[in-house]
């Protein structure tokens, strides 16, 4: 099986000497999705920067089988789209259109291809009507989607998102989640770092719990059911899972653990034998 991402023995220290990542090893299959969970300062963003060759540590990082080294950086950056936590960092040009076209132009595509890809990305993120606007005039939610569009316009096979829903209002959050779900369904490999444990079951099949070292990795539902493990890392269980886990510990529930609203609703209906 060819993996989208293979990280082996990755170590990285900040210039001041503090260890940020220590012997991090994981793999993610093509088309898979991984949620990166961990407390503040756990090295999540640092790890993501390695996937695009923006930081270089010891150990090895492979993208679609190719090692991330200087000679392959252009190849890697064409395939790994990065969306940074603060959209202001990513929106650098005076108009949204130019920002979305920035990546494809750097790839050396002809102007026709640039227009096609930029338009597709803007339409996918629902930002086509705002293409000529200055990024500074957009709302925060729109900026987040715009930042996503700037990465999508390069048609990446792997999308890396750092806190994609942080500081978003519920509606913008729903929009971003729906967009990422559709990308996932279209076969894009997704890696996202987040503190939002409720978001992970919606978007990620697997979870990597990071705190400078890999604390745990496995299926999303398997990791997110471990209250003690999560609490040790300063995290908590997803809302529905936490509630049903408490009911289970009190002997009031014995079914499968729900992680989404739909699953929780089914579990309640089953437990109370409600009929439609």
């Amino acid at each position, binding site marked *: 099986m060819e993996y989208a991402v293979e990280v082996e023995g990755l170590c990285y220290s900040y210039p001041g000497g503090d260890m940020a990542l220590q012997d991090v090893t994981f793999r993610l299959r093509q088309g898979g999705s991984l949620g990166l969970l961990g407390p503040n300062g756990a090295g999540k963003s640092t790890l993501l920067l390695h996937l695009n060759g923006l930081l270089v540590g010891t150990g090895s990082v492979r993208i679609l089988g190719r090692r991330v080294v200087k000679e392959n950086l252009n190849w890697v950056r064409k395939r790994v789209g990065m969306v*940074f936590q603060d959209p202001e960092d990513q929106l650098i040009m*005076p108009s949204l259109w130019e920002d979305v076209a920035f990546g494809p132009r750097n790839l050396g595509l002809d102007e026709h291809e640039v227009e096609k890809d930029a338009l597709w990305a803007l339409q996918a993120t629902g930002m086509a009507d705002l293409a000529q606007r200055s990024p*500074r005039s957009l709302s925060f939610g729109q900026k987040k989607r715009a930042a996503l569009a700037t990465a999508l316009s390069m048609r990446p096979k792997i999308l890396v998102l750092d806190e994609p829903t942080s500081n978003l209002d519920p509606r913008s959050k729903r929009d971003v989640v729906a967009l990422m779900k559709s990308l996932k369904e279209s076969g894009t490999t997704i890696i996202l770092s987040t503190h939002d444990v409720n978001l992970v079951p919606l978007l990620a099949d697997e979870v990597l719990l990071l705190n400078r070292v890999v604390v745990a990795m496995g299926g999303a539902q398997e990791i997110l059911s471990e209250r003690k493990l999560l609490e040790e890392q300063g995290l908590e269980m997803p809302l529905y899972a936490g509630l049903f886990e408490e009911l289970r510990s009190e002997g009031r529930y014995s079914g499968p653990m729900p992680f989404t609203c739909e699953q929780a609703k089914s579990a309640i209906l089953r437990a109370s034998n409600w009929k439609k």
Partner: protein
Amino acid sequence: MNLEPNSCCRSPIHDWEPRSRIASMGLLMLSIVTLQSLVLASMGLAISFGFLVLSRISWKRVAGNLRWPVLFFMPFLLILPFTVEGEAVASLSYLSASRQGSLLGLLIFLKGCAAVILAQVLQGCCPFSVTALALRDLGVPDSLVQIFLFTYRNIDLLGQELSSSFRSMSARGFERQSNSRTARVYGNAFGALLLRSLARSERMFFAMVSRGYDGHLPKIKARRMNLWDWMKALSVVFMALALQSPGVMGWSML
């Protein structure tokens, strides 16, 4: 804050191909600022107003932007009459204003205003990025164009960060006064802004590199010049040369 509110209007200046617009209007500005005649400088100012009308950009905004340059040019009007020797036209106590000084002050004032109005027409008729990329096509170094572009993009962001710093200071009871403490607090706020800017610029650089940036802005195929573009450019070059011709011919015009 909208830094380019007029860039989406339509006018013959807006429709003009950017490189030829910058080159020919730049030449006109140069011609105006090198004039040595009051009559010709007045004509230069009239031409600038003509372009302002033609461009349909907001007069109110132009007037607002003229405030500071006018404040800069005003001292020439006020000081030169008393410092340049010549025929006295008025006396105030032991000070006497010379005719030559007054005319020189007025000349500098008119030329300055004309150049600033033209610069606003030039800048206000298309998005700044278009102007910047056209400058690069005209031979301005790529790194300088990038500095213009990224500074322009981030002026607003820095302004927002600074005002949020001031808001947070006010929320904690800080009141601006004329004392050393205020100066220290302002110094700290600006220092913090610089540090944040440094961190932000590093993150922005990462974001650009992740999208294939290699230190150069990608080339964009420029629009071809049509007949109208050529005609507009030639007309403006003709105006620039016409303003200079009396001086070259040695005709005396005040």
